[in-house]
Every structure is written in structure tokens, then in C-alpha cells.
């Protein structure tokens, strides 16, 4: 495949188009995911916060965390409300799970890193990453100001992709289609844009060819407004033809002289 001017220009433009669209899609997706996950996180934090309030109200009445049997019902209810929630856990300051939406896990221990947010005696919400889960949590503080444990809510980390994968796929296809469509358009329009250049080159070439043929016409017709360069080019073509003819006549002359002798 030869690289014509139109192809070169189109290739450059298509490369720019493709990379621009890729960068834009990437930015767009990142932004979307950011907005989406902050929305999801804020909702789950809110759910965790309502549980925290309930638990702390009970703690305030002097109950021990592990005695709050009704909390188990609360978290099971919250989990049942949203199938995206993987689990809700309440664990004490030593990491033992006291309540879990999955009752089988009660009595087990949470990963050690989950205890880190509890060492600081604050009620700041925290977010953790598990292998395939996002975790939002809030420390549970009793009325003595002591961190008794934490409530955490787990939801799948691939949430955005899983929920909206199909939609994003369709969008990617649409954008891909756009890129292909406009690439084709580029090919056509680039070739149109370069047509005058191509024509002029072809015309000059044709003029040159004609000039080199013995019976050709020196004047190049049909080039229209050609400007200084083309004027010079005409002179060049004329001179070339003149040179060829001159050399030819000279050769004839020499031949004649040669034969004469």
C-alpha cells in the first residue's frame, strides 16, 4: 500500500481521533465511577450510621455490646432490604464478631487491619478494601467514651462494573461506532481536501510529459490561476523542452557532420 498524501493526513487525524476518544472515554469512565461509588458509599455509610445510632442508644442505657440481641434483627432487616449488601457485621474491640447478618460467622474474628481504625478514640467513619468487597464502617462508642467495637457493611467492590457493565459496554460500542464512522469520513474528506494539490501535481506532471514528447504542446492549458510558481514551472517546462530539442538538433547536427566526413 502506498502512502498517498490523503492517507498520510487521514492516518494522522485518525490516530489523533482515536487517542482523543480513548482519553476522553477513560476520563469519563473514571469520573462516572467516582460519582457512582461515592454515591454508593454514602448510602451504605448512611445505613451503617443508622445502625450505629441504634446500637449506641442501647449502649447508653448501660447494656454491653454483646447483650444487644435486638441488633441481630436490625442488621438482618437492613441486609434483606438490599440484595447488594454482602453482609453487615458488628465486632468488638478485640475483633470478635458479635453479630453478623450471616449467623454462621458470629464468634469468628475480623482481619487485624479492621481493628486499626478503632485504636484512635474517635468516631470517624472508615472505609476499607477487602479482597473483593468494599467495607464502610463506623466505630461504636459507649457513653464512657470508650470504643466498644464497630459496625461494618460490606458490598461488592466491582459494584459499578457489575451493575452497569452492560450499559457501559453498549456505550463503548456506540463510541467505537462513532470513531469508525468519523474515521471513514476523515478518509473521504482528507482526499477531497487534498484534491487540488493532487490535481495540480498531476497537471504539472502531465505538462512535463507532454513537453517531453516530441510533438507535445508547450503551453499547459487548464491550470487556471497558477501564480508565480506555476509561471516559473511553465518556463521550466519550456526550457526543458527547449533543451531537449536543442540537444536533439545539436545531435542531428553532429551526426550530420559525422556522416559528412
Amino acid at each position: 500500500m502506498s502512502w498517498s498524501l490523503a492517507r498520510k493526513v487521514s492516518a494522522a487525524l485518525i490516530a489523533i481521533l482515536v487517542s482523543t476518544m480513548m482519553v476522553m472515554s477513560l476520563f469519563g469512565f473514571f469520573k462516572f465511577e467516582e460519582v457512582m461509588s461515592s454515591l454508593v458509599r454514602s448510602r451504605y455509610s448512611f445505613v451503617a450510621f443508622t445502625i450505629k445510632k441504634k446500637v449506641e442508644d442501647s449502649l447508653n442505657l448501660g447494656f454491653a455490646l454483646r447483650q444487644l440481641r435486638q441488633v441481630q434483627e436490625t442488621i438482618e432487616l437492613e441486609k434483606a432490604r438490599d440484595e447488594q449488601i454482602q453482609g453487615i457485621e458488628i465486632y468488638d474491640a478485640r475483633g470478635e464478631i458479635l453479630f453478623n447478618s450471616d449467623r454462621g460467622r458470629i464468634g469468628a474474628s475480623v482481619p487485624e487491619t479492621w481493628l486499626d481504625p478503632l485504636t484512635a478514640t474517635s468516631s470517624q467513619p472508615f472505609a476499607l478494601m477487602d479482597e473483593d468487597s468494599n467495607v464502610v464502617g463506623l466505630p461504636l462508642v459507649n457513653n464512657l467514651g470508650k470504643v466498644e467495637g464497630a459496625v461494618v457493611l460490606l458490598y461488592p467492590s466491582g459494584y459499578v462494573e457489575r451493575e452497569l457493565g452492560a450499559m457501559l459496554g453498549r456505550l463503548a460500542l456506540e463510541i467505537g461506532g462513532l470513531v469508525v464512522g468519523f474515521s471513514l469520513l476523515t478518509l473521504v474528506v482528507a482526499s477531497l481536501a487534498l484534491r487540488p494539490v493532487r490535481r495540480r501535481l498531476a497537471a504539472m506532471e502531465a505538462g512535463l510529459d507532454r513537453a517531453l514528447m516530441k510533438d507535445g504542446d508547450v503551453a499547459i492549458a487548464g491550470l487556471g490561476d497558477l501564480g508565480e510558481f506555476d509561471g516559473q514551472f511553465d518556463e521550466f517546462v519550456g526550457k526543458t523542452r527547449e533543451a531537449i530539442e536543442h540537444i536533439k538538433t545539436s545531435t542531428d547536427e553532429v551526426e550530420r557532420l559525422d556522416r559528412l566526413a
Partner: protein
Amino acid sequence: MIGRLFFGVVTAVLLMSGPVAAEPAAKPYRIYMALWRGWEDAAQGFKDYFTNQNIPVELIIRDAGQDRSKLPEFVAEAKQLGVDLVFTWGTTVTVDMLGTYDTVDPAKHITDIPAVFAIVSQPVGAKVVPNLASSGRNIAGTSYLVPMDTQINLLQSYRSVRKLGMVYNPLEKNSLVAADELRDLGKRDGYDLVVAPVEVVDGKPVVESIASKVRDLKAAGVDFLYIPPDTFLNINRDVLTSAALAEKIPSFAAAENPVLSSKAMLGGVYRYYTVGQLTAYKAEQILVHKIAPADLPVDPPKRLSIIINMPVVRALEVYPPMSLLSLAEVVDSGVEVRP
């Protein structure tokens, strides 16, 4: 996948918490509890804390029955038993058994055994500790009175007050101090304090004068009644709160009884039970975490118990703001009261 992760750490956590978990098998901590007027909520809170936290303790409970002369015996017994910690209830027990910081005597007081105190109304005033940051000696403790400005903030957040009324027993020094503090805070918060001391005849406050004093306050345009933590008024709380209800004055109590078992509308208190738990928490710091008692501050519980007496609220139709309601403990017997 989470499961796998958990199992990996279970062992680690067990190993880490080994010494703590092993302790139940070891001998329990022995705590000598010296009480002033029998087993009540603070003592219960103290005991429950250890149960809840799975800390094995052996409690040796002694009640002075408001008899000061028994206290030297307690000191001797505690020393002789060689207990791990001493708990003292009330100012008298605390001062007599632990001494004040300037008069402590190893012969008469407990010095070598760490001690925690509770329900001492003025730990600094009674010279139990030189300041609230540190006792400077082998004791720690809790305070239980709600600071006056916390009380007023709570009262104001329920309903903005212009004229605050207060009925009190002029014979009780605590109430006079409270009146001064309220007056000062009034300058800050923009309310006037109207006081009505109950009548005193033959050096004794007259119960019958309470209702008329409340009427006087109503006449003076009082829009909230402050009930100080006054022994006389505590005993006669039904008379006082019924009078306030009759005059349609909302009432705020600095102690829990007028709200919990009478007709005061609102209370902001540290519950004895909570104070007992906090005292036990200090004991845990000393016994389990080996923190020197002098390094523990003397402080009240972090969270105030806001008690709202719903039948009274309904009778007065002075409803609590939503944000306060969501924080409060509501007393609702279901029995309607009439002004």
C-alpha cells in the same frame, strides 16, 4: 473469599489476645466495695461492667449503712484481706477511707492498695484530689454532677428560656451555689433567674410552701422551672413537680429521680449506673492494663443522659425538638397525667 481471609487471622487474633483470654482460668481480681447507703445503681453498674467485659472479679461488699464509725473497720479489713483494689462510694466513705491529699496517713487510710471512688460531688472541694487531671496518688475516680452550663445548654436546646425559675431550700448550701451559677450563665445566655426559697420555720423548710412558691414564679412570668439537686426537694419531688404541672410550667431536673419517678418534664443527668460503669472502666485500666491510678483523670461519663418524661410533655404540650428526641431516653409509662 472473605472466609479464607478471616481464617488466616483468627489464629493471629487468638495468639495476640492469649494473655487476656487465659486470665479467666487464673485467679479473679479481688475488689473491696465500701458502700454508704446500700446496694444501688452505681454499685450495680460497677459490678455489671466486669460481667459484660468478661473480667473475673471477686467482690467483697461492705455497707456502712450511713454510719461513719464503721469506716475505720473497713480500712483495716481491706488491708488485712490484701485485696487488689478498693471501691469507695460517696464523699464520706472516700474521705474517711482514702484520706484527703493533704492529710493522708498510711496508718488510718488505704495507701498501698489502688482505689477508685464514685459519687463524690466535689472531688476537688473535698480535697480528695488536687485537680481533676490527676489524683497525684494511688487513687482514681469519677465525677457525677453535670456541669451547670451543660445543663443550661440542654434546657435551652429544648426550648429557649427568657425567665428561669428556681425553688430551693435556703438551708442547703449546694442550692445557693447553683443559684449563683445560674445567674451568671443567665448573663451569657440572656435569661433572668427568678428564685423562690421555700419558707423556713424553726430551722426547717416547710413542705406546704412549695406549691405557693411555684405559683409566685408563674406570676413572675417564669417559662421554665429549674429543680436543683437538693435533698429536701428530692424527697418532696412529687409536691414540687405536681405544682409545676398544675401551673403549666415545664420543669428541668438536675437529678434523675424527679423525672424518672415523678412529674418533672426533662432531666439531664449522669445516671448512677453509668457512673458505676465508668468507675469500673477505671478499675479495669488499673487492674488489667496496669495503668497507674495517678495517670487517670477524674471525669464524668462522655454522654449525658437526657431523660424526657412523655406523659408530662403531652400534658403540657411543650414538645421536644426532633434532634433532642432522637438523643433522649424517653420515659413513657403510658399513664396520662393531668395538670
